[in-house]
């Protein structure tokens, strides 16, 4: 299984890489939405999971999610926003744009794994 982590912070990419890596994913990284689309465009197999920050230079996470929803090749990729944006209206916007789940920073490793379990990407109770 593959995942792509899209965040402009190297520290956050390292944390996310570690957590989803522990769940058995091979992890790709991109620093913004545009770079992620370019990277995904050149891959033979599309990752099952994308963890997407919101505020990034070039193309932000909301635009990335919308673009990924439009792209037939990326249709099966599960999109999880991982961001400090936590106003109710912002979450609703992200869900409307096509995000499947939403994790608010700060989050614990357990929380991220719980969300992946909710999405059926790791077995339930992987955490306990």
């Amino acid at each position: 299984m593959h995942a792509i982590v899209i965040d402009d912070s190297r520290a956050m990419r390292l944390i996310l890489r570690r957590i989803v890596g522990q769940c058995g994913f091979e992890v790709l990284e991109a620093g913004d939405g545009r770079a992620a689309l370019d990277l995904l465009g050149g891959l033979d197999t599309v990752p099952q999971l994308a963890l997407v920050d919101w505020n990034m230079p070039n193309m932000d996470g909301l635009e990335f999610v919308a673009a990924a929803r439009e792209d037939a090749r990326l249709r099966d990729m599960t999109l999880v926003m991982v961001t400090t944006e936590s106003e109710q209206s912002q979450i609703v916007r992200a869900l409307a744009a096509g995000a499947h789940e939403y994790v608010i920073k700060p989050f614990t490793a357990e929380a991220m794994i719980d969300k992946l379990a909710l999405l059926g990407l790791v077995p339930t109770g992987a955490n306990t």
Partner: protein
Amino acid sequence: MSLSASDFAFVAGLVRRESAIVLAPGKEYLVEARLLPVARQAGAGSVADYLGTLQRRPDPAAHRSVVDALTTNETSWFRDREPFSALTDVVVPHLVGTRAAARSVRVWSAACSSGQEPYSLAITLQQALPAGWRYQIHATDISTEMIKRASAGEFSQVEVNRGLPVQLLVNHFTRSGTGWKVAPALRENVTFQQLNLTAPLPALASFDVIFLRNVLIYFDVETKRSVLRNICKLLRPDGWLFLGAAETTIGVDEGFERVAVGRTSAYRPRATVPAGTLGKG
């Protein structure tokens, strides 16, 4: 800076007396780390100073803070998920058949910690019960601090991340300060009370479902047995008891029978157990 054996024994004794929770030797670092903020808050220079004063001058409020600081309140939304699916798929449809006259369901969350369990139960029942049905969730815990927090219904970002599907967050909560607050439509169906499971239980109306999850693990077998006996008296004879994934009544209290519900199991009171019978009935 490390805790002396006698200070550790004092704390372990206190915690054991007040909550029946066993702190094994080797947990000195945990005691020290957890009590440091409590000691600082009380104006003591160190944990040793704080415990010294407490041993010379016992103070029930301070005893509570020590016990609170050392009990594990680890919890999450829809913990383990299957018990909640079992309510939706099996228990609620059954109750809708058997409680049609009253159209109401009573559930006890018997070690509710910071409230994720009772509010997860509220969300589950809200979604699963037919229109016109009512439900009440009674949530209790030994920790006054936890009861205060749970009853406020406010959760941090870190807490709402754990196991709560985002659609339910958006539907049942609103932003409040740095975190989130549970919607009044859920809150009004949940009552809270401080209650020690290992002390004689207060009079409570009986329940259709009891969640007694991830608390028996802290007790020795005698305490487990007496807690289960007392709980059984508050469960309707055709009710359900749900335990934590690592807990069972088997080999502890034969008054319950394990039954499969959905993809997990629950416990139901046995019809009658002949006096003196232990082991397989």
